[in-house]
């Protein structure tokens, strides 16, 4: 139940950001689906016992793959789906906790939160970079299309 509510929240959040980034409205439904599913997947993987870094890595691979597939299908830049969908993955909360523990004088916990934020960010970077390496021909029928 909580997972479903979080899926809806992530989908709403993704569309809100799509609007701020001026994504054309006809792509909102796909953005919502990709962003919501990505966050849901990450949370679900964590309930299976994976760390935040591992689940973010796997969820981001899923997110990037589905963004590329949708980009080919709707003939639009992959950026449209990727940028909106990645927002729920960004470790904003960890950055907050880092600042919080620093201020209340618990540098140990601040360091640990900061490192986790960095690890999650690196996981996102690797997942996107590796998934983008997959040659275009796996996604495209025609040549010359820029994803």
């Amino acid at each position, binding site marked *: 139940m909580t997972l479903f509510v979080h899926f809806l*929240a992530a989908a709403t959040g993704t569309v*809100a950001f799509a609007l701020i980034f001026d994504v054309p409205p006809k792509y909102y439904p796909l953005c919502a689906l990709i962003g919501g599913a990505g966050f849901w997947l990450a949370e679900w993987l964590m309930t299976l016992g994976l760390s935040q870094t591992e689940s973010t890595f796997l969820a981001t691979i899923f997110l990037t793959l589905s963004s590329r597939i949708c980009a080919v299908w709707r003939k639009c*830049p992959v950026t449209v789906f990727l940028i909106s969908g990645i927002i729920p993955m960004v470790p*904003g909360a960890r950055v907050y906790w880092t*600042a919080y523990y620093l*201020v209340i004088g618990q540098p140990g916990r601040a360091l640990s939160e900061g490192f986790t934020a960095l690890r999650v960010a690196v996981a*996102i970077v690797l997942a996107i*970079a590796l998934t983008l390496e997959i040659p275009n021909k796996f996604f495209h029928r025609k040549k010359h*299309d*820029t994803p």
Partner: protein
Amino acid sequence: MKYPTDEVLETALEAGHILLESGAEIFRVMETMRRISRYYGVDEDHKEFYILTNAIFASGESSHGHFAKVQPCRVRDARLSRVVAINQLSREIEQGKHTLPQVRAELARIRNMPDPPRALQIFASGAGSAAFCCMFGGGVSECIAAFLAGLALYVFVLYVSAPHMSKISGNLIGGALVTLLCVLFRSAGLGQDLNTMIIGAIIPLIPGVSFTNGIRDIADGDYISGVVRLLDTLLVFLCIAVGVGGVFTVYRHISGGMLI
């Protein structure tokens, strides 16, 4: 189709300029500029493009002489509808649907495409804040507080920080503003858990475009631009954290060591 080299390169440069400004990756800018010049008769041997996050360098040669232009670009907020429109245009060019003057007219139209209404952007910021507050475990009252703080934050972003402030002070004050508002809301009885409220409401400041594009640029081998964008992301994160931390520090002194 054959056109004078400088007209073709000028058009390619304009397309690249709009793309770069609106949040496209270096790779896409390069690809689009190449496509336009190739289609209108300037082949690879007679021109060179060099693209960074904040400038495009273009040069070319023809029987009449040389073309050279440096186009500085200020990367502003993401305007992905323009990236989509130019992507579509470049597809149509390859299908032979446009003459060069038509492309120029179309580019002028794309440049003048309206932004989403400000009221809608402000509402989206509020809705996004509430949604993220919920995702990080906030209850209904926390979400309402995050919604209000998100609205206020984007009023500040659109009317104060974006036109008048540097990125550093804009994000620093933005983070501080959100924290201050959430502290005030909680003192007024709206919302219990300050953490989820603040986490939700600072999300609109997160530089998603620089982050994603930075990764993309590095993956494509455009290291200089990618590193600049990732550095930009890191800087913005630090500024937000300092803004939040600053207000907490002051609040701790006022409340005599009590927090949360």
